[in-house]
């Protein structure tokens, strides 16, 4: 069957499945609809959390970035999994014990201050909007490819679909839908990887295939990959450091603590039945996430090797442009892959040198989607990856938009500025907020600050520098008071934002840097994506010193901290 038709069928069937499950589960109870089922087993909750967590950044973008960064791409792998260890040990059980619904609510109560709550809401909105820009990039790439239109048109269509998906809304909160999404997503990711690993190495497990010899030879796959990339003038795949060791350290740390500070993941731990379940849910979530994250490096390495082998089947014998495969032509239509015949020989040269390289544009975000086509896998596998990628991007984008909308309408309007607003007005405000957020994120998505995973990394940096330190100090220190927490959050996010805007443009609009280009002056050689780690350090330091010179928190707050440190006597989140 034609690929396009198969793709429509694949995408249509999976979405019918999600909606079907949503309708079936909705009949149960309205309460369950909001709190995602208080009585769900930790394994099921872990699977749903994994689906929530893995977005366009993990699915569509990450392996493509690793394919071109090699060892340097490890920052994403360690950062986005190691964060769960931090989350499980430092935050999840205590926030569950506290038993409120949202992160700003906890911060507002623990720091006995409405100002603290407002600052937290603003920080969350900034992180979430940045996060959505990353999702929009992924959605734009996926739609442009499967509708065979340019990236900009794909993004516009994607924005409309995200809007309807998010307004339909509640389906997001239903754990069973997310379990179905996880299953589709993980199958879509692993099946092509298994095929490709079998083709290249004869080993069906991609995790082992990456460390095996190439089929029919004694050469290890990674050694061969190192050899071909260095022949083209690139850095060795397995040892290419991302800028510097300091930068990799900061990047990884920023992603790890950002993971533990992002609201849409934390929120899942508010709704498990017990503190014990909050601990093990984080473990199960990581198990399910690891399946994708340990497969991704294999996808990356093998995609890079296949790409090079396609363009240069034997050394010195380059692919003739007129004989290029169909996937090449299709991606050219999106504008995300560009060829320019610099030496006029009609063949494609792919090298590290700017002067001779004729693959003038290879958008990293196309690699995962193009990978099965490059490996010449059957059409149904390619259709499957389309369905999985769209599920990942749409579900996370919709979830984040709901979070943004509810922080504006619930936390800000109803909680602070207009307490007497009716439920109907609150709902209308949240719809307007959602449309506004899609508009802003979509507009910025036409010229995203980075590839999807890079943009999402910026969002994590912002969360790392603002929310995580406030939460952690709120639990582990009784001495940190409202002045300290507020000053810390503001200092952390401000310094991170200034650094990011200086290098990426104000609100990521290119060429608006206020001090001009500063590339050679990067602070300790740390790139903007990794700066959240420094921001967090600033946050901790400022909070510590400001708290030292101001009054200690009142006794009832110190008792509250004692209270959340012990599991027994959990209040159910449903009571609120």
């Amino acid at each position, binding site marked *: 069957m034609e690929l396009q038709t198969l793709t429509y069928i694949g995408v249509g069937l999976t979405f019918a499945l999600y909606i079907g499950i949503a309708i079936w589960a909705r009949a149960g109870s309205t309460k369950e609809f909001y709190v995602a089922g208080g009585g769900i087993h930790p394994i099921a909750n872990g699977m749903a959390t994994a689906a929530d967590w893995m977005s366009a950044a993990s699915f569509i973008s990450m392996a493509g970035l*690793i394919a071109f960064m090699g*060892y340097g791409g*490890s920052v994403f*792998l*360690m950062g986005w*999994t*190691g964060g*769960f*260890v*931090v989350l*499980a*040990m*430092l935050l999840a*059980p205590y926030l569950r014990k506290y038993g409120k619904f949202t992160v700003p609510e906890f911060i507002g109560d623990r720091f006995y201050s409405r100002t603290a709550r407002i600052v937290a809401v603003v920080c969350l909105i900034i992180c979430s909007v940045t996060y959505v820009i990353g999702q929009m990039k992924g959605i734009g790439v996926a739609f442009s490819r499967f509708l065979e239109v340019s990236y900009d048109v794909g993004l516009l269509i994607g924005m409309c679909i995200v809007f309807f998906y998010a307004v339909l809304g509640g389906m997001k909160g239903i754990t069973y839908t997310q379990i179905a999404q996880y299953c589709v997503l993980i199958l879509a990711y692993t099946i092509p990887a298994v095929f490709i690993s079998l083709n290249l190495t004869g080993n069906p497990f991609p*995790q*082992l295939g*990456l*460390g*095996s*010899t190439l089929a029919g030879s004694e050469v*290890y*796959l*990674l*050694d061969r990959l190192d050899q071909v990339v260095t022949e083209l003038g690139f850095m060795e795949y*397995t*040892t290419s450091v991302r800028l510097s*060791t300091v930068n*990799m*350290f900061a990047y*990884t*740390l920023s992603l790890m603590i950002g993971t533990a500070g992002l609201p849409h993941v934390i929120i899942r731990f508010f709704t498990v039945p*017990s*503190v*014990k379940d909050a*601990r*093990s849910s*984080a*473990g199960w979530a*990581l*198990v399910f996430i*690891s399946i994708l*994250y*340990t497969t991704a*490096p294999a996808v990356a390495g093998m995609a890079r090797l296949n790409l090079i082998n396609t363009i240069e089947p034997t050394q010195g014998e380059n692919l003739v442009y007129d004989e290029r495969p169909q996937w090449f032509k299709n991606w050219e239509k999106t504008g995300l892959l560009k060829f320019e015949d610099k030496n006029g020989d009609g063949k494609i040269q792919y090298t590290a040198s700017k002067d001779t390289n004729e693959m003038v544009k290879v958008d990293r975000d196309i690699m995962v989607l193009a990978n099965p086509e490059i490996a010449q896998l059957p059409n149904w596998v390619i259709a499957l990856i389309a369905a999985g990628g769209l599920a990942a991007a749409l579900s996370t984008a919709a979830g984040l938009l709901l979070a943004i909308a509810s922080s504006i309408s619930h936390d800000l309007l109803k909680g602070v500025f207009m307490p007497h607003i009716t439920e109907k007005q609150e709902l209308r405000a949240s719809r307007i907020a959602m449309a506004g957020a899609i508009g802003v994120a979509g507009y910025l998505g036409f010229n995203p600050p980075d590839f999807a995973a890079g943009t999402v990394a910026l969002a994590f940096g912002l969360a790392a520098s603002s929310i995580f330190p406030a939460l952690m100090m709120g639990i582990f220190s009784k001495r940190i008071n409202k002045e300290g927490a507020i000053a810390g959050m503001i200092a952390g996010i401000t310094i991170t934002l200034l650094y990011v805007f200086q290098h990426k443009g104000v609100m990521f609009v290119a060429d608006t840097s206020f001090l001009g280009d500063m590339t050679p002056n990067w602070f300790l050689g740390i790139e903007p994506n990794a700066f959240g780690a420094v921001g967090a350090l600033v946050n901790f330091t400022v909070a510590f010193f400001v708290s030292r010179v101001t009054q200690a928190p009142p006794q009832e707050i110190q008792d509250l901290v*004692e*209270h959340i*440190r*012990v*599991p*027994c*006597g*959990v209040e159910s989140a449903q009571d609120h």
Partner: protein
Amino acid sequence: MAFKSQDDAKAYWKENVSLMIKLLVVWFAVSFGCGILLVDVLNTIQLGGYKLGFWFAQQGSIYTFVVLIFVYTKKMAALDRKYGVDEE
């Protein structure tokens, strides 16, 4: 609070924090240690087709993280029972 005494509450929190620190040391060692700081040294050792440092950065650290959370869950459950503060 269900602790028998204030001392019990202090001891429980102390044991909790010390377990956490031990596990975070491992967390740091496999990722920041083996995966980033010591990667060049470890890369001189081969694990099949993998250089060992590269393997830690792209595979090994992730497997260790999963184990760490389950060890934490198990040990904390035991600690809760020891001090009689578990939820059942």
